[in-house]
């Protein structure tokens, strides 16, 4: 498969291929209204379990002969509608919603890896993911090999017989580096090892991981998809770019023999892991996420634009020693961001001052941006990663991940760009004022 340019993947009807991101986000599948839920705005199916006329119908559902929900840990109509909407929005074959982004990632890892396997992973990755890979999974016999994911040769060297998957973020958080997805996609296809991309910070229409050969995309829906900081959730998407018949062991291989192989990962993840580990999304969360994702393109377009404006302004600020944003021409990942992303380079900006203490003072003086450990909110949020998200990592892990004591991370919101810029200007002045 050539991955020199995006794949023309058409998993749905031909008519759908021409629809834009917002049209998909608002309307979902054309057939969705008639076959599952007739309402314009989805109802919240707040029911733990669902009634059937008789036991035969329940048996059919348990035996996979009916898509009807039985019990909300296994499937809930509102959650199912979110999963179908996300699959449609992203152009994937299927999606699986979880209680959180970490829950979605955990389900993916538990579906693909087993004791004795290795995960090849970027060393520049979210601190919570490092904990999962470096502390939790080793207790179950799964080891992670941390590599420089911006160097495809290093990934290729690390990926061997026992490698169950390759894991990277679309834009590393908070290092803000962008891997060469074309090369990683080729590598994945050559070796038959699924490439998993945590694309939380680059939802549609910014980035299509499957177009470059990634097998799976994982999103923390808490962030841009829900968009307003209302609910915690996550979802994994099978992009359709990977032939699951190449997996020769474990639940994916088993399911590829029993159902349409296109659905082998989704079926294995749901039936062999998700429903037994209990990390289900609840109906109310799915409802709010469905509402949120209708505006993802509108929000993200503005957020990316404002992030670039803020990054440029910070670069000119005399108090700022470094600015990180892949949309800046002098950023090392600018060429990759320009190649792989459409419509912006994300809405996360980092900057450094002369000390951690100065970062604290600047953050405390912000009047619009909020001191919050989250991202992808409609509000501009600021965090000091070194002392929070990465507080219990070693200095080496922190620096490998692009985290420094004198760095702040900004998740740019949908406020007016001039107000965001003005807020940071005044906060930085106040932080350098002897009374600030």
């Amino acid at each position, binding site marked *: 498969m050539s991955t020199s340019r995006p794949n023309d993947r058409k998993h*749905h009807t031909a008519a759908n291929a021409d629809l834009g991101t917002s049209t998909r986000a608002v309307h979902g*599948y054309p*057939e969705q209204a008639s*076959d*599952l839920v007739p309402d314009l705005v989805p109802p919240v199916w707040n029911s733990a379990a669902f009634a059937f006329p008789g036991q035969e119908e*329940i048996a*059919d*559902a*348990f*035996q*996979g*002969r*009916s*898509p*009807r*929900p*039985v019990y909300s840990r*296994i*499937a809930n109509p509102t959650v*199912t509608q979110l*999963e*179908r909407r996300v699959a449609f929005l992203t152009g994937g074959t*299927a999606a699986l919603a979880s209680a959180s982004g970490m829950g979605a990632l955990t389900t993916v890892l538990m579906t693909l890896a087993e004791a004795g396997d290795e995960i090849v992973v970027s060393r520049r990755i979210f601190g919570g993911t490092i904990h999962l890979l470096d502390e939790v999974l080793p207790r179950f016999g799964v080891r992670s090999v941390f590599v420089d994911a911006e160097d495809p040769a290093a990934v290729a060297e690390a990926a061997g017989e026992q490698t169950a998957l390759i894991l990277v973020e679309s834009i590393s958080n908070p290092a803000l580096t962008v891997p060469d997805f074309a090369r990683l996609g080729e590598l994945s296809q050559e070796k038959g090892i699924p490439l998993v991309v945590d694309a939380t910070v680059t939802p549609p229409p910014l980035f299509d991981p499957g177009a470059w050969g990634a097998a799976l995309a994982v999103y923390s829906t808490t962030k841009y998809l829900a968009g307003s900081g209302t609910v915690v959730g996550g979802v994994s998407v099978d992009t359709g770019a990977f032939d699951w018949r190449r997996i020769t062991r474990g639940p994916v291989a088993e*399911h590829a023999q*029993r*159902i*349409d*192989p*296109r*659905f082998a990962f*989704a*079926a294995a993840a*749901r*039936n*062999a892991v998700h*429903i037994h580990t209990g990390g289900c999304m609840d109906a109310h969360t799915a409802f709010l996420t469905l509402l949120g994702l209708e505006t993802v393109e509108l929000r993200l377009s503005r957020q990316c634009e404002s992030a670039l404006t803020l990054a440029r302004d910070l670069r000119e600020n005399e108090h700022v020693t470094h600015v990180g944003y892949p949309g800046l021409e002098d950023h090392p990942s600018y060429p990759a961001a320009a190649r792989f992303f459409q419509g912006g380079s994300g809405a996360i900006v980092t900057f450094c001052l002369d000390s951690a203490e100065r970062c604290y003072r600047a953050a405390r003086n912000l009047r619009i941006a909020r001191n919050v450990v989250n991202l992808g909110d409609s509000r501009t949020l600021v965090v000091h990663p070194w002392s929070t998200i990465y507080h219990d990592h070693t200095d080496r892990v922190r620096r490998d991940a692009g985290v420094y004591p004198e760095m702040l991370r900004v998740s740019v919101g949908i406020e007016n760009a001039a107000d965001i810029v003005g807020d940071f200007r005044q906060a930085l002045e106040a932080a350098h004022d002897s009374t600030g």
Partner: protein
Amino acid sequence: MQLKINGKDRELDASTPTVSQLLELENVEAPDMVSVQLNGTILKREEFDSQTISPGDEVEFLYFMGGGSAPA
């Protein structure tokens, strides 16, 4: 014609329909998410428009979403 769908005998008011036609005739829910097993063999989606159903065939419509624990 007589056939068996999801383990149950069915009398179908059509002769040798394609799989796509059978999905419509049976008003199968979420057809984009269904796997079709014909006489024990999983069909590829691209075969749905050409593969015909014959009298006595056994057809299974299988889902990975919703439902219970695992497809058959």
